[in-house]
């Protein structure tokens, strides 16, 4: 049970590195952005995992009675981060579309070849 509790963190590490692999090893620009989104999602998972309290509920006060709440602060951070994340991803996609229009390709090495000519 002790080790089971760390499972969330292990998934965070693996997911983070899967995303990072796509960013460094893939040559397709859209695939790199997908990798970046996975990387982001892993960070979100880490924050929300750290805010969880045993036997807690979502931090919304019920009509009556006292309950244990999970930590609201990581949730606030990640909530805004998700929306900012999609905005920056959209900006990245905009740049990729412009690159395609100018170079006719979204593969990194082909773009470099055209640049070197």
């Amino acid at each position: 049970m002790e080790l089971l509790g760390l499972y969330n963190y292990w998934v965070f590490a693996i997911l983070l590195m899967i995303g990072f692999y796509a960013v460094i090893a893939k040559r397709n620009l859209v695939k790199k952005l997908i990798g970046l989104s996975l990387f982001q999602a892993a960070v979100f998972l880490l924050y929300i995992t750290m805010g969880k309290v045993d036997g807690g509920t979502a931090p919304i006060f019920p009509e009556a009675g006292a309950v244990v709440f999970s930590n609201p602060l990581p949730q606030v951070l990640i909530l805004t981060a998700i929306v900012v994340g999609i905005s920056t991803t959209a900006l990245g996609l905009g740049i990729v579309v412009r690159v395609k229009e100018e170079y006719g390709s979204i593969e990194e090495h082909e773009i470099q070849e055209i640049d070197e000519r």
Partner: protein
Amino acid sequence: MIVIFGIFLLTLLVITAIAIVRTDNLFVAVMLMGIASLLIAANFFLLDAADVALTEAAVGAGISTVLFLGALALTSERERAKSSNRLLSFTVVVAAALIVIYATFDKPRFGDPEAPAQTHVAPWYLEKTPEYIGIPNVVTAVLGSFRGYDTLGEVFVVFTAGIGVLFLLGGGGAAGALSQDKINEGLRHHLIPRVVGRVLIPFILLFGLYVQFHGEYGPGGGFQAGAIVAAAIILYALLEGEQRALSVLPERVLLGLMACGPLLYGAVGLAGIVLGGNFLDYSVLSPDPVKGQQLGILLIEAGVGISVTGVLLAIFHAFAARGR
């Protein structure tokens, strides 16, 4: 039981992520990304983050998929090249993963109420929210009032990203205006999507408004509502053709919404100064400080919702117009 369910979802998530990286069909990768977002959202729900789960489901599984598909339509669906330096990248990634996993053994146990993150400032917010703000949802209270500066900054980041996309892709519609009729039809000739869409869209919009104005009492708020409303209008654009969606909400209105949100937010902040308080101090907005806080949060959440809707729709139309 919940622990086992969580482990099941997380394992599925890892499998999905591996499949996303391995496939060379980008369309498949984007669709799997939507599934991954939904799995993460379900996980957030298990981890007591209802607000975050709602945002991730609306933004990650909905809007993000549409934007990626829009970009794929303008670029290509297949990944042509093999990965570069596969062995080296793989070694680096595995080594880094092992280091991070080794580091996790020093982390406080999952759900430990005595962990430093739980004992530092979080109890103060949980204790003082009823007294200072008087609304049940602590996440909204922190987002809107205690950390109002942060949220204002985030709104400006969203706004700036929207402007950036419009700079990159806007104003390019003229060259392709000839073939307009073909694409603008949307799915109008397909009966089933059209009927289902017509039934769904009003309810999605209604749900968006509920999430917007119920954010103080339950999970919800401007960020989620903005994404949901934008999703409803994007669905309309996909079903009825982009032209029709633009006649409902013309581009000029969208630009207005984009600017209106941050302006409304900033104006509420300035109103605090004018009435003798600090910037973004809502207590002075009403004779009763708690009522003032509630009014302030309602207004800034409206600003956030307007801004997010405007930006997401403007970005969507910028991608769609490029395809013409």
